[in-house]
């Protein structure tokens, strides 16, 4: 597959915004892959955590803007803890999520009516509250 990388892309608005609100410098990453090796949600991801960072380094916004990976990250921070360069990918994933959830056509990623009464009776408040905060339009 031919991939075009240009200065305009690398300095594009979307990538800049992700860097700004996550506070992370993608260029600290040298692609060792430790994050992807330790990630507990990686089986459900379409892009590895290290690939998300790689695409952002190259300014390939479209590759990451709608990735599934950002929605299945559990923000456990094991990637951050093991990154030799201290990159906090949970912040990058959250930046991707909130940018999507702030768009005018953003849709809720969870629906309370999908849960059974039994499940709601058992699930702790912290599960529901953090779920709403991570998956509903802002």
């Amino acid at each position: 597959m031919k991939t075009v990388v240009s200065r305009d892309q690398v300095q594009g608005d979307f990538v800049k915004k992700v860097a700004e609100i996550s506070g992370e410098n993608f260029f600290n990453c040298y692609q060792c892959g430790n994050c992807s090796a330790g990630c507990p949600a990686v089986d459900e991801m379409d892009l590895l955590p290290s690939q998300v960072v790689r695409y952002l380094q190259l300014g390939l916004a479209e590759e990451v803007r709608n990735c599934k990976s950002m929605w299945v990250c559990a923000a456990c921070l094991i990637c951050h803890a093991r990154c030799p360069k201290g990159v906090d990918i949970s912040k990058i994933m959250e930046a991707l999520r909130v940018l999507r959830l702030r768009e005018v056509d953003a849709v809720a990623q969870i629906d309370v009516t999908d849960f059974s009464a039994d499940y709601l009776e058992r699930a702790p408040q912290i599960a529901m509250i953090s779920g709403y905060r991570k998956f509903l339009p802002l």
Partner: protein
Amino acid sequence: MKYPYFPGCTLYTKAKKLDEAGRECSRRLGFELDELPDWTCCGATFPLVNDYHIAMSGPTRILADTKDQGGDKLVTLCSVCFNVLKRTNYVMRTDEERRAKITDFIERDYHGETEVMHYLQVLRDDIGFDQLKEKVGKPLEGLKVACYYGCLLLRPVKEIGLDNMENPTIFEDFVRALGAEPVEFPFKIECCGAFQTVHSMDVATRCSRNILNSARNSGADLVITTCPLCQFNLDDRQPEILKSEPDFATIPVVYFTQLLALALEMSAADLGFERNLIDPLPVLQAKGVVGD
């Protein structure tokens, strides 16, 4: 000793026994958890982006209330509350710009003076595990315990600073003080899937299965946790795991304060084990920790 105490929402309802056992044990150990008046929810998530300050207004107000009531420490039992309050406090201490925005908005004067502590830290640093051991009336001899830390009690280590990130020992030392035997298991700091349980349940199921199998294969009789979300995921996912893995051996998951309560001679009948999907009583009876 009296500590300002923040129970949090879940400990008032679904995780009542984490709270009740914790309070009763503190009385038996000679310290008091003094519940903060008029507390609100901590928000249950720490905002991971730099431009979302409103989520820190709630926890900041809780921390400022503690300070205004003359407390220099604030104790929590729930890992989620602990993490949110501790990380918010770190921002209050280190980030002048964000602190100004948030404290201006909530109209409070606060600079991160409160020290957020987990109950385990009170036991380790203020009471001392040696002292705890002396107060144990019923040592839990023969019980093999998998100490599951999860994420929020440990990470990010720079902001939380409770223990070593890759190989923490506070929980094992606690279990030893109770007379039980901690087992070493490789998944003790891995994630249970956390809030993905309401979005990608498969993530929570897979994560829980790996943790539980690791605990079981290391010889544990049960798993202990500090977190109501971990307890829920690890307990509630087991019927689902059994569907895809018929030879999966179920294992009970209880709160650390429930184990502490047993060692301090509280009755198992008062510890609410009936809420557990996987009943811990059979193994506790088999090990002689609880009478038949």
